[in-house]
């Protein structure tokens, strides 16, 4: 009798534990979705503004990631094209709860802007023909120019090398006067950057293997040492 009860208890515990695990995974995904949905409302003014916001959510509040892992993730997502907020949400979510976690987080962060823009787009045609609205937009368009120019100045201040400026001026002239497609420009500059790195690497001896970092911007002490994945 007591044995049977014990057994029953055990199976029930097992079931509860299994259900609990599922439940936790589900909860975690739901929680990820809700957290990124909330963050999605705060992405005004560019993706970089989101970096500290996401950090607070997933590192400080929920302890899902360590700060170090989080910053590693941010660094990686910045070398990929695409909206920073969405990429970061996807990668962080994926680390926390697998592929579905990543997809849920990315959808969460996109959904608010999708819904808001959809509502605006649906009503755009009808209110855009109102003279006052058109006048308001004429005003705002001037601020758009100012915002973009200011962003350009900020970027130029950051990267002050003369050579960068010369290349940028050449690129600008190519688009403005030769009608070069902006897509082509991006491809050409990436190709040039890769070729330059490749030639430099070969010239500098080529002793180090393909995948080691450039000693100039890595830690110079061990430019070509063994991989540093801290496997015990």
């Amino acid at each position, binding site marked *: 009798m007591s044995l049977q009860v014990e057994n029953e208890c055990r199976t029930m515990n097992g079931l509860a534990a299994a259900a609990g695990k599922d439940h936790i995974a589900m909860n975690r995904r739901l929680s990820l979705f809700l957290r990124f949905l909330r963050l*999605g*409302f*705060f992405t*005004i*003014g*560019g993706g970089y503004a989101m970096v500290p916001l996401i950090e607070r959510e997933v590192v400080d509040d929920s302890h899902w990631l360590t700060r170090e892992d989080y910053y*590693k993730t941010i660094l*990686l*997502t910045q070398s990929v*094209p*695409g*909206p*920073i907020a*969405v990429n970061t949400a*996807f990668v962080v979510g*994926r680390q926390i709860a697998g592929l579905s976690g990543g997809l849920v987080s*990315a959808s969460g962060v996109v959904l608010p802007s*999708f819904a808001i*823009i*959809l509502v*605006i*787009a649906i009503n755009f045609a009808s209110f855009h023909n109102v003279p006052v609205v058109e*006048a308001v*937009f*004429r*005003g*705002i*368009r*001037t*601020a*758009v*120019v*100012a*915002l*973009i*120019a*200011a*962003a*350009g*100045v900020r970027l130029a201040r950051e990267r002050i090398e003369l050579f960068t400026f*010369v*290349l*940028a001026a050449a*690129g*600008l002239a190519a688009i*403005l006067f030769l009608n070069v*497609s902006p*897509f082509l420009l*991006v491809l050409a*500059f*990436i190709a*040039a*950057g*890769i*070729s*330059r790195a*490749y030639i430099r690497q070969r010239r500098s001896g080529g002793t180090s293997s393909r*995948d*080691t*970092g450039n000693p100039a911007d890595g830690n110079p002490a061990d430019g070509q040492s063994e991989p540093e994945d801290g496997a015990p």
Partner: protein
Amino acid sequence: MMILLQLFVSFLKIGLFSFGGGYAMLPLIQDEIVRLHGWVTQANFVDIIAIAQITPGPIAVNSATFVGYHVAGVPGAVIATFAVVSGPLVLAAIVVRLADRFSSSYLVQGALTGLRPALLALIAYSAISIARTSFTGVVTVLVGVGAFALLIFTRVHPLIILGATALIGGLFLGG
């Protein structure tokens, strides 16, 4: 059906090329939706940027949703928005898997270094081409230069500047 496919391809392309975030990708979006397909006018394109500034969400995503709806209704909005984020997400998944090897590769570093002047050129080009659309007279030029000066020399929040220019537009730029 055809138009949905075109939307998908266009915004997939925009997503895959949108390095650096924000304004650098504007010429790419402009090239696709204004010049190549004529889905919106240049003035509407600037309006989309303005709307993107005062609502949450990345510009690429906002313009995808807006143009998608404008061209093909709600299905268009869904397809274009999905397209613009899907390419980068696939790349991000791959890059995370390669992790350390990827970010320390000198070739990747070289690509990113090469990208810098391109981004600067693209931002400069956006400013010039949008100025051509936005500056229609003395008042608009003065307001634009004033806004630029405030952004560079003070810490006034961009949203306040957008609000102020909207007010000036409503009061002085009618008809």
